[in-house]
């Protein structure tokens, strides 16, 4: 199905794009008027101009052509998710299992031709049992208005009259075949396979097998193939948000029906809008935990509807499910009221009364209005998961995180941000002290998407260590920690002293009180730690005249300096409340 050359005007004046190759300027593509005058791709431009002095030319832009072809292939996913661009001028679509949706192969080809012509593409379409046969038929048998559709089993006969170039051979090999008088594919059929391979190489025999469907040829699709897909086609292009909302409701309903049957919940969705002009717009979203609540999912999709440009209209909407997780059927509570809140009050504090929060507050319109149904997830069991989904749908799931303790002496590693959709760490790794095992344990403790998500269950305070009081307690830690630490210009007197004056963010500070040092050495037993330059840090808490308290550290040993070695550097690592 050769595509158009991007940017070629479709009028009647002869036109060609020109590419430089090996020092010459060759015709890369021609429009029908130029082709009628005898021009063909590959011809030197000088020859072409001698045929047709009035030829209009433009520089070929293979990248833009490739991008246009890619867009076209993406649009073709309306026929099947197994779609990919093929070479520089084709798109291959695996329609096994989806042709019946159009009533068979012939109606599908007709529909494809009609829609492509409307986009200004003159397609040559072929449908065959294998990729090789389809490639050959599309390029050498199909005409502009007549798709090549050999009956099942007739592929061998259909290929026989085609030139040997139809076998996807490189030009030198095709020329070699022609030299010995083999011009048609059918003339290769009676040749003994071994002789063919010996004379012309394995490639010819292999190409022939592929064309005849003797050898399998898989198609790797443009994008990851979705696990589930539901599709809605409109009789005529649609551009009204209200129609999109209804379509989203139907699509999610259909998808959820299948999810319920399979006991799964959706984690990653993609809603594709196939526009009339061949462009495809997407809404991609993830959920914090598997969900198959149609109102919730529809709400998430609807909330992002304003990012979609419908152009002149949308003719297809395809909701694809890329990731799903097991979601067992949930028992709904008998009591429709939320459980009472337990709010431990401070001793001596006045009791507080918390009114039952209204379920659906009627708020003044939001500047970025959500369509009706957008807030439909509130009843979903699972606490704040619907909230996280709404936040994640707009800001991206990466924007949501939680703080989790890690067993590390290094301050910035002791508290990490983990994705909010992930299980709380079941068991923080023990202090890594035993050689390589420590590093491995630390690696395997990286957050993973767990199959069962229990977000609202929070960790207790264990794991954060004791801070502040007690014999074994760590010294106080700042409330804001700068990662990476910010360099400061500091002045100090004695080697072990904290600075008496420092400049941070172009503002001078005079130290009035100081405490420390607290020495924190790198975790030398890890590969990361032993390679670090700031192997030893001496931390000081310093307080300025106003009473602000900072956490500074000196990287490097205090003794180094003018006597030898680089002078220690000072960093601001955090601010105390």
């Amino acid at each position, binding site marked *: 199905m050769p595509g158009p050359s991007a940017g070629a005007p479709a009028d009647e004046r002869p036109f060609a794009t020109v590419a430089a190759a090996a020092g010459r300027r060759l015709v890369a593509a021609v429009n029908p008027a130029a082709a009628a005058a005898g021009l063909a791709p590959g011809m030197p431009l000088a020859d072409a101009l001698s045929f047709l002095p009035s030829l209009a030319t433009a520089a070929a832009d293979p990248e833009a052509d490739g991008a246009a072809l890619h867009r076209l292939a993406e649009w073709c996913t309306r026929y099947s998710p197994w779609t990919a661009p093929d070479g520089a001028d084709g798109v291959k679509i695996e329609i096994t299992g989806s042709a019946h949706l159009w009533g068979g192969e012939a109606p599908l080809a007709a529909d494809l031709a009609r829609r492509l012509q409307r986009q200004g593409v003159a397609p040559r379409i072929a449908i065959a049992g294998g990729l090789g046969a389809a490639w050959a038929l599309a390029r050498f048998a199909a005409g502009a208005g007549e798709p090549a559709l050999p009956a099942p089993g007739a592929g061998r006969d259909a290929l026989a009259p085609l030139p040997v170039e139809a076998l996807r051979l490189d030009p030198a090999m095709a020329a070699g075949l022609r030299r010995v008088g083999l011009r048609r594919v059918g003339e290769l059929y009676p040749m003994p396979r071994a002789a063919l391979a010996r004379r012309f190489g394995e490639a010819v025999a292999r190409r022939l097998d592929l064309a005849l469907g003797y050898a399998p040829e898989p198609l790797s699709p443009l994008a990851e193939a979705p696990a589930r897909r539901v599709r809605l086609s409109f009789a005529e292009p649609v551009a009204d948000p209200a129609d999109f909302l209804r379509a989203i409701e139907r699509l999610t309903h259909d998808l959820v029906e299948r999810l319920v049957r399979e006991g799964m919940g959706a984690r990653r969705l993609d809603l594709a809008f196939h526009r009339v002009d061949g462009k495809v717009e997407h809404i991609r979203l993830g959920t914090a935990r598997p969900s198959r609540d149609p109102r919730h999912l529809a709400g998430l999709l609807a909330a992002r509807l304003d990012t979609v440009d419908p152009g002149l209209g949308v003719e297809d909407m395809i909701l694809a499910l890329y990731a799903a997780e097991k979601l067992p059927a949930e028992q709904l509570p008998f009591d429709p009221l939320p459980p009472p809140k337990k709010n431990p009050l401070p001793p001596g504090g006045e009791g507080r009364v918390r*009114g039952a929060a209204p379920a659906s507050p009627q*708020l003044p319109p939001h500047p970025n209005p959500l369509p009706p149904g957008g807030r439909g997830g509130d009843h979903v069991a699972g606490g704040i998961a619907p909230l996280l989904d709404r936040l994640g749908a707009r800001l991206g799931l990466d*924007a949501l995180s939680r703080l989790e303790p890690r067993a590390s002496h290094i301050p910035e590693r002791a508290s990490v941000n983990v994705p909010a959709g992930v299980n709380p760490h079941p068991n923080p790794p023990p202090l890594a002290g035993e050689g390589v095992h420590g590093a491995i344990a630390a690696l395997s403790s990286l957050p993973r998407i767990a199959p069962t998500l229990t977000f609202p269950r929070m960790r207790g305070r264990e794991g954060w260590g004791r801070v502040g009081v007690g014999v074994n307690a760590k010294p106080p*830690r700042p409330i804001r920690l700068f990662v990476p630490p910010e360099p400061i210009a500091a002045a100090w007197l004695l080697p072990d002293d904290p600075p008496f004056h420092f400049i941070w963010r172009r*503002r001078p500070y005079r130290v009035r009180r100081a405490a420390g040092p607290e020495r924190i050495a790198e975790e030398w037993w890890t590969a990361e730690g032993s390679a670090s330059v700031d192997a030893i840090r001496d931390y000081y*808490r310093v307080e300025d005249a106003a009473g602000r*308290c900072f956490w500074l550290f000196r990287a490097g040993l205090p003794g180094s300096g003018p006597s030898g070695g680089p002078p220690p550097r000072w960093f601001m690592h955090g601010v105390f409340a």
Partner: protein
Amino acid sequence: MPRVTSLSALRERIRRLEQPVRHGVLPFGVDAIDDALPGGGLALGAVHEILGVGGDEEDAATASGFVAGLLARLGAEPVLWCLKRADLYGPGLLAHGLDPGRLVLVRAARDDDILWAVEEGLRAPDLAAAVGEIGRLPMVAGRRLQLAAERSGVTLFLLRRWRNAAVAAAERGRPSAAVTRWRVSALPSAPPFQQPPLPRWGRGGEHYGDARGWELGIGRPRWRMELLRVRGGAPGAWDVEVADATGHVSLSAGLADRPAAPAEQAAPRAGAGPLSRRAG
């Protein structure tokens, strides 16, 4: 006198209109502060603004410590904390009583997104509270948040962070729809006790820290809490010791400029002074 009763009834009605404490209050546990607040504590289901001072307007460190202490005493449900830079440090929050595991951090680059996120949070009744760190707060947005908080009962703390001095100056004076506006700043810490005797250095018997302009040892940090604006209450200022591991503040002692407070609120410190450290 019917006239008087109707007047007082009217006053009562106005008072009720002015202070929507429908969702209860969170008392500080310090009478001097609670008396200044309508209902005897920080109104829940409302918006509270917290400002920093000087360089801390950029980091909002004291403000976040103040909020962490309040959140620590506000149930055990999750807290939505919307910020631009994920620089909150778990152990530091824990020092003020807030379990970091309760936090759901939402990072967004723009004030609009933060406002949107906290407003979404205010619709989720399963949250204990929401915190938003924002720079620009238009009056209309603040009003929306206040209405949303009143409806759902979720309390919202807005930490004002400004990087730009011009923006800070413009925003500081802008009125807002918040029920209270606080300014929390650090005070020089109380001198520490139980310091080991320091070695003498130099001739005059001064220990070596003094010679350099700084003293060794940092005591319990203190804040000045200024209630700049409160709907239906009286503004005031208090010097307190910072929120401890249970999230409570306590009036600090030994300060000349502190407001009158009951004696039992403040733990008196005998012999507090820099000289007492050199007993040995």
